[in-house]
């Protein structure tokens, strides 16, 4: 791995901390799902952690993030409290949405994490609106919008890129190309599947592809995009090549993928490859990384305990938060 502007050791260790947090958080969530404490859909981000961590590390607090339903990684990377997120997954009153959102709908307005949305492509128009608000208010903030390869086939993708480019809005569309939209491969569903980032050309938008398994490269590429957007260059598109190591959701045994493909990608595990690099390059010792892992274990233990011990919402909460005005 060659670094253009080598980040500080602290930042690199923080990348490791965050990626490991997301990994362990989700492994524990999967375990709680099998115990029946988490219900419904649980879409795991395992394998894709380098993207959320690398990309979001380039933002300032006032920048907005919106994303899709595979949203735990983005939420934690934007600074959401793991306990509050886990409580939301448990459907508890102490969850980020008081138990009304669930895994796919995490929000933290204070952190400007403006939500996980569960209709493919649905978050893109909202991202355009958030970016429009930043520009309209002359506020120095941008919007980072994550989407999957599946969203490219939605009309909302094209409507959103066109309008964002037409109005030169401060928004980055970040495509996490994990090669599958649920059970169908991108080859099966998209004509122009091998270079998705080039869709941006149709909207005169700068675009780049990056290795989504490499946190530092994701950070560097996103940094460039952020600079361009902040300088008023209008929207930007990034495509990161990645792979989800688990099924689409907990209900999916992933039988449509062949095992050799899965093995090939597992060798690129963004966390294992990063820890090896940190040690090989003598940036961090095994002991330092172990220590980080132990800290994270505690945080995740606490999150599970907090979620488990928290109360379910009172029945009266059912009708709260439907309307803001009477």
């Amino acid at each position, binding site marked *: 791995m060659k670094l253009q502007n080598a980040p500080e050791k602290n930042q690199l260790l923080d990348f490791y901390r965050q990626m490991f947090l997301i990994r362990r958080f989700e492994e524990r969530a999967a375990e709680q799902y099998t115990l029946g404490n988490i219900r419904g859909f649980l879409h795991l981000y395992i394998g894709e952690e380098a993207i959320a961590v690398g990309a979001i590390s380039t933002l300032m607090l006032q920048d907005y993030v919106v994303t899709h339903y595979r949203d735990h990684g983005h939420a934690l990377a934007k600074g959401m409290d793991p306990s509050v997120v886990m409580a939301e997954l448990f459907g508890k009153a102490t969850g980020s949405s008081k138990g009304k959102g669930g895994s796919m709908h995490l929000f933290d307005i204070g952190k400007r994490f403006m939500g996980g949305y569960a209709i493919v492509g649905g978050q893109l128009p909202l991202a355009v609106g958030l970016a429009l*608000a930043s520009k309209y208010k002359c506020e120095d903030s941008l919007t980072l919008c994550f989407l999957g390869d599946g969203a490219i086939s939605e009309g909302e993708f094209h409507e959103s890129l066109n*309008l964002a480019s*037409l109005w030169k809005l401060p928004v980055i569309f970040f495509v996490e190309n994990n090669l599958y939209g649920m059970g169908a491969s991108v080859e099966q569903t998209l004509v122009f599947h091998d270079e998705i980032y080039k869709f941006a050309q149709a909207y005169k938008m700068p675009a780049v592809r990056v290795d989504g398994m490499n946190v530092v490269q994701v950070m560097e590429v996103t940094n460039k995009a952020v600079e361009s957007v902040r300088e008023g260059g209008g929207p930007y598109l990034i495509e990161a090549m990645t792979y989800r190591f688990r099924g689409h959701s907990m209900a999916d045994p992933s039988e449509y993928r062949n095992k050799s493909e899965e093995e090939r990608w597992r060798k690129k595990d963004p966390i294992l490859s990063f820890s090896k690099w940190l040690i090989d390059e003598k940036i961090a010792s095994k002991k330092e990384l172990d220590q980080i892992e132990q800290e994270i274990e505690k945080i995740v233990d606490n999150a599970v305990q907090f979620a488990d011990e928290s109360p379910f919402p009172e029945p009266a909460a059912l009708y709260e*938060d439907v309307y803001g005005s009477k």
Partner: protein
Amino acid sequence: MAQITYREAMSRALREALKDERVFIMGEDIGSYGGAYAVTKGFLEEYGGERIRETPISESVISGAGAGAAIAGLRPIVELMTINFSFLAMDQIINHAAKVRYMSGGQLTCPLIVRTVTGGGASVGATHSQSLEGWFASVPGLRVVVPSTPYDALGLFRSSLQQEDPVIFVEHALLYSSRGEVPDEQYVVPFGKADIKRIGTDVTIVAYARMSMVAMRAAEDLESRGISAEVIDLRTLSPLDGDTVAESVRKTNHAVVVEETWYTGGFGATVVGLIQERAFDYLNAPVARVAGSEVPMPYSRYLEQASIPNENRIIQAVESTLGR
């Protein structure tokens, strides 16, 4: 007190709204063209392109960007040229704008106003003549406003601007040139307060939007036949003023519910439901419904007129309900 048109009332409402810097308007052909119904004529020159934003023909991103700007603290007004085109924006309106408050546990507020145009009668065929406001009214999280007069249009729009929730503000295509008195002084028409447009003792006719006007004409005719009809204009479908409707029916003991859209799944069924729940013991006859014919809207004028409820059909329904 000045006589102005429904169109002028809407233009005035939007000019007032634009006094708030957080308000901007976006939609198709609202700029140089002045809006398909000329409500924003001259606005682009007066307010500039930042406030009056011409958009591509992209109903989904127009509505969704409105919702996105609203959750970021602005007060966008989105114009969807007609309610028929709202189908292309359903994901953003129903899956997103209507639900972000609830899904976020009250963290997000989405004060988006979507102005759109409903109704048939202009010979514009099957895909440009529908009345779909009742569909929106069934979605928790949305407010649905259906003014029938210039007075209500302005007063209800002022109330819409005070809302913390997404509002679907539905204007009727055939009412833009209708005139009515609008006071110069400030007033608002609150949400959830139906208008008793005419007091009567024999039957309650419930309607909204243009059908309120048709019901009023029917009531005048009925008067000459010795029947005293009370006419209630709902003004907002969500919230729905069940109190006013139930109280009236308890007095008249008869009800006829009128709407322009199809019978099956029409909003009128909800009104009938609340009447039987809240005034069943007071009813002397089953509640009658008058609705549009269950066909795609035909182009040809006489066929079209045959499909839209008119005075005669309301009069017949009233007389049948009263056993005359």
